[in-house]
């Protein structure tokens, strides 16, 4: 009911920015009601300001956009292309996708990326687990089951993107991580007591950590998921939305649901959690892992062998548990190709993990 004339006529809410057109959404971050055009403009300008404030790019750089075909990376590709033209960033953009080898999931989403390639006229490079590691996720799941498969996938994906970036000779990779993702990761690192990750997870960009690692950044770090989804919806962007068929990632699921529940009561919760993460400082004397390089493949690692090499060794030797849990003391044996004892083998073979 209208509060001034007590009639039952529903008055459309007007845009609080232009005061002319009908508002289409209430922004979770500011509480403003905006019309479609004012929302597009506000969203794009905020990403631009994030990029400028953190000096994410330099003119002349080649930037790879990590593209999965999902909402975040599709919006990222769209906005990066648009801002690069609007503000003459002078960047050469391309899309990098990882094919994990998941039938009925990634093969479908890669079709979306291929359409994006044409829609945005950006070159696309797909790197696959099969060509990089000799294993598809389908084959890995067959061997390890559905319990720790996400560990394999996550570790392999990180390296795969770097490898793709090096093949394409890009200077930087940008990923579609949004504000909700960052807040979720802060919570997860708190819940797991992972202080090293907690300290670096809110950083908007990573410096080059060494040979074979390409610097990464998150231009959508302060963009709410709600706005990303509505931006894609109102712009009619073509994206793919199906859950990974192997994703039982329950722990992240709980953190996510918790955060969404908080957001529904207090929309600023997401920014608040990020703010907390950004301003935490770790007391001196807290033991941190020392970053080195993997003695087998040269990738960054805090152990003699990087996680990816250990996981791969486990797969190739039929000992899938090798990379799950703490088996650091076996690394020397693996490196020098010594045989494992029967007891060690038995422990690492079990699939009941």
């Amino acid at each position, binding site marked *: 009911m209208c509060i001034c004339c007590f009639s039952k006529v529903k008055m459309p809410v007007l845009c609080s920015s232009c005061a002319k057109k009908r*508002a289409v959404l209430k922004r979770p971050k500011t509480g403003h*009601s905006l019309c479609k055009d004012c929302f597009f403009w506000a969203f794009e300008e905020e990403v631009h300001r994030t990029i400028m404030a953190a000096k994410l790019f330099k003119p002349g750089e080649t930037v790879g956009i990590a593209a999965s075909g999902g*909402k975040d990376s599709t919006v990222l590709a769209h906005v990066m292309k648009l801002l690069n033209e609007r503000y003459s960033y002078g960047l050469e953009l391309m899309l990098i996708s990882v094919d994990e080898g998941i039938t009925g999931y990634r093969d479908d989403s890669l079709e979306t990326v291929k359409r994006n390639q044409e829609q945005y006229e950006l070159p696309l490079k797909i790197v696959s687990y099969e060509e990089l590691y000799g294993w598809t996720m389908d084959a890995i799941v067959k061997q390890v089951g559905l319990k720790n498969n996400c560990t394999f996938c996550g570790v392999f994906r990180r390296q795969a993107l770097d490898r793709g970036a090096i093949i394409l000779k890009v200077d930087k990779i940008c990923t*579609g991580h949004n504000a909700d993702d960052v807040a979720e990761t802060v919570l997860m690192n708190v819940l797991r007591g992972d202080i090293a990750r907690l300290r670096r997870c809110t950083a908007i960009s990573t410096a080059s950590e060494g040979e074979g690692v390409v610097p990464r950044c998150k231009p959508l770090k302060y963009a709410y*998921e709600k706005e990303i989804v509505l931006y894609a919806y109102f712009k009619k962007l073509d994206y793919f*939305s199906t859950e990974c068929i192997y994703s039982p990632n329950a722990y992240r699921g709980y953190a996510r649901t918790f955060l*969404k529940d908080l957001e529904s009561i207090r929309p600023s919760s997401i920014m608040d959690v990020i703010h907390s993460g950004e301003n935490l400082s770790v007391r001196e004397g807290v033991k941190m892992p020392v970053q080195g390089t993997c003695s087998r493949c040269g990738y960054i690692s805090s152990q003699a062998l990087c996680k990816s090499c250990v996981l791969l060794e486990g797969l190739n030797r039929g000992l899938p548990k090798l990379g799950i849990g703490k088996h650091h003391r076996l690394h020397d044996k693996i490196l020098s190709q010594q045989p494992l004892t029967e007891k060690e083998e038995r422990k690492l073979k079990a699939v009941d993990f």
Partner: protein
Amino acid sequence: MAAPVGVHLEFGGGAELLFNGVKEHQVTLPSQSDPWDMKQLLVWIRRNLLKERPELFVQGDTVRPGILVLINDADWELMGELEYQLEDQDNIVFISTLHGG
């Protein structure tokens, strides 16, 4: 008695998976003494359309947090949410934000 109300429902962003993968539904809500509102529509959807895991769509008497609702292409937060009274030919869209990005 209010006349039956015809509404167009759309599920997207992965929410359609809870409705046998069907994205668009043209439905007719039967006539009843009071006008239909969003709260009643959600109960109706749960009873008549939802095929699996209802807890992924409704929570209490509202949608699960993380599902966006648009009424005639506007955020339902601007339209009174659960109290919004449906009109014939309304277009209601539910988009999940909970699926991979």
